């Protein structure tokens, strides 16, 4: 299946697969064997539908409503758990992340690797003031140990800059992209201001999953503002934010974040009645009551 998580501008280059119009009535069999024809104007949107925390399965295109800049669109196709995933794990290794916490992070990444499927890939970034890619996307399930073995904690925290870099880094058009960011603090040295990072998030194709260590009191206005921004960024990309108490199981949170991302739908539509430029707002709904729907709030046209 050809897919660029938001706008399929380079889908032609991925001409191995193609999308078929008029797939609104796609049934379960169609989901198992999606057939697509390449389109340069296809928009794909990750949509999480949950009921009391559990994923709602079996939905079809006709169950969704989607509006692009307020204009209703036709959902062409829906897939569920079929698209391979690229996971970027960005780890805060600033001064405060020492000893057992660093070991816990290594263990968490190792366990996350074991949850990846054969065609999924993992990339590792670390950041303090310096942003580093310590392992590029790979399907090698044993590569993270070596990549993280040299990681030592020091320095400040360029959280927003690291997130921006992770979001802008492209993944192939036929894959979904989850950026999972762990931090135990707040930003101290980024050049990115909140406005620019929100803009990057709005135009990116990735979904953010924050895993944040709960900060001890006092909760200062700066901490509150940072957490508000993280919440906004997660919401902007249809992602999640989990606050973990110190000592709690980080591995479990990493794995749950991946699982929540995996168990979401991917909708496809070709925008009509809207200009083909700039940032578009998105509004995704499900024609069922009592379900929580989470999807990105906008996408950027190339």
């Amino acid at each position, binding site marked *: 299946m050809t897919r660029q998580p938001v706008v399929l501008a380079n889908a032609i280059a991925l001409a191995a697969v193609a999308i078929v119009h008029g797939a609104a009535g796609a049934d379960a069999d169609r989901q198992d064997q999606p057939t697509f024809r390449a389109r340069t104007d296809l928009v794909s949107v990750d949509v999480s539908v949950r009921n009391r925390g559990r994923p709602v399965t079996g939905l079809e295109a006709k169950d969704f409503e989607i509006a692009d800049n307020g204009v209703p669109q036709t959902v062409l196709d829906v897939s569920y758990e079929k698209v391979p995933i690229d996971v970027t794990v960005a780890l805060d290794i600033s001064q405060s992340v020492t000893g057992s916490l660093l070991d816990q992070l290594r263990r968490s990444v190792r366990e996350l690797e074991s949850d990846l499927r054969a065609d999924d890939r993992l990339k590792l970034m670390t950041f303090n003031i310096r942003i580093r890619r310590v392992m590029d996307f790979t399907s090698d399930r044993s590569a993270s140990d070596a990549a993280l073995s040299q990681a030592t904690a020091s320095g400040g925290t360029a959280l927003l800059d690291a997130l921006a*870099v992770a979001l802008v880094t492209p993944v192939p058009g036929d894959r979904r992209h989850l950026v999972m960011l762990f931090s135990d603090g707040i930003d101290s040295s980024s050049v990115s201001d909140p406005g620019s990072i929100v803009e990057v998030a709005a135009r990116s194709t990735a979904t953010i999953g924050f895993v944040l260590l709960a900060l001890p009191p006092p909760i200062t206005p700066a901490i509150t503002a940072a957490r508000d921004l993280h919440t906004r960024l997660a919401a902007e990309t249809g992602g999640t934010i989990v606050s973990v108490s110190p000592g709690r199981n980080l591995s479990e949170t990493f794995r749950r974040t991946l699982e929540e991302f995996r168990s979401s739908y991917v909708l496809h539509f070709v925008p009509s009645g809207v200009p083909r430029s700039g940032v578009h707002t998105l509004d995704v709904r499900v024609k069922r009551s009592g379900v929580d729907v989470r999807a990105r709030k906008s996408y950027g*046209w190339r």
Partner: protein
Amino acid sequence: MTFSLRSSNFLLTLAFCLLPCLASGQSTSKPFPPTVRSLADAFDRGDRLSNMPELRQTRDLPGVIRQILSAGNPWPSIPRREAVFGLEVLAVALASDDAGVQGELPKIADYYAAAARRPAAPPVPSPDTFECGWHWAAIAAFEGAYRPVPALAEVDRALERCRAEPRFLLARAVLTDQRWPVLSVIRDGRAFDILPLNAMRAREVLAQYQVSMSHAETIAEARVRAAWYLYRSARLAEALPFLDNAGLPSADAELRCIAAIVRGRILRGLGRLDEATQAYRAALDAWPTSQSARVALMTMAVAHGDRGEGESLAESVQTMPENAIDPWWWFWQGDAHLFWPIVTSLRDLAK
């Protein structure tokens, strides 16, 4: 990088300061508590005290520090070596979250400031380059730890001794800025206060920067820092003129990079996106390994819808050489990045 050029005059003087009192020699065999003896030996070997298990792994850091202070000088024949040793003790204490250690900070600063002054006994001598360098390092350590209140006390002490030192006046401005932080976010052309501005405090911070603008050695940096302060206060239109007339020394690439990044932030906040991009390019020209300039350019490219350029810059950020550095990383910490270079110079003097 070791030192910024704008700090080099002071450091050059420091490097060439030949003080007759600093005779060569190892620590004496005076019986000291084993912990203190071990730390003194490590210092003699050139090891950093922050890496020593006696300080790094102890569960009673306040106790160890008290032991060090009460033990006296491990180098009676080289009195000032103890003062340099003390700077490293100060750095360890500042890095600790232990409340008991924080209570020891004034004692550490007082004790070793006296050790930096020689002869220690009355009459009090005029300050020399070693002593002023010692104060500079102590202030830098406090700035890096974001401890403005004790740091301001250290600045007062430093200015009592080294009255004409412009960098201490600028340090006072930086620390006053740290003490009363402001933070506004510019979003969609509007300012949202996160840490609201107190007008009286803002005047005080700017007045301190103005003092530094009257000294040739610090005028450019003070103007850049004042502009950054005004940016964070959402006073964008007022901020820009400080950069327009900053008189940046052409040889000071570090400051030119920082000034260009500050200009880019302001212009972006004003919605002048093309000019902001130009400013960030100027930052990268001034300092080609600046990660921050690359990230800023990357976000501008994304804002302009140029994902290709953004992706290329993202790739370059992630693959920068291990030793690449960026002056933006330490801008908010005053002279903290100079702490170890100054300590190294003082160590050389105190052999």
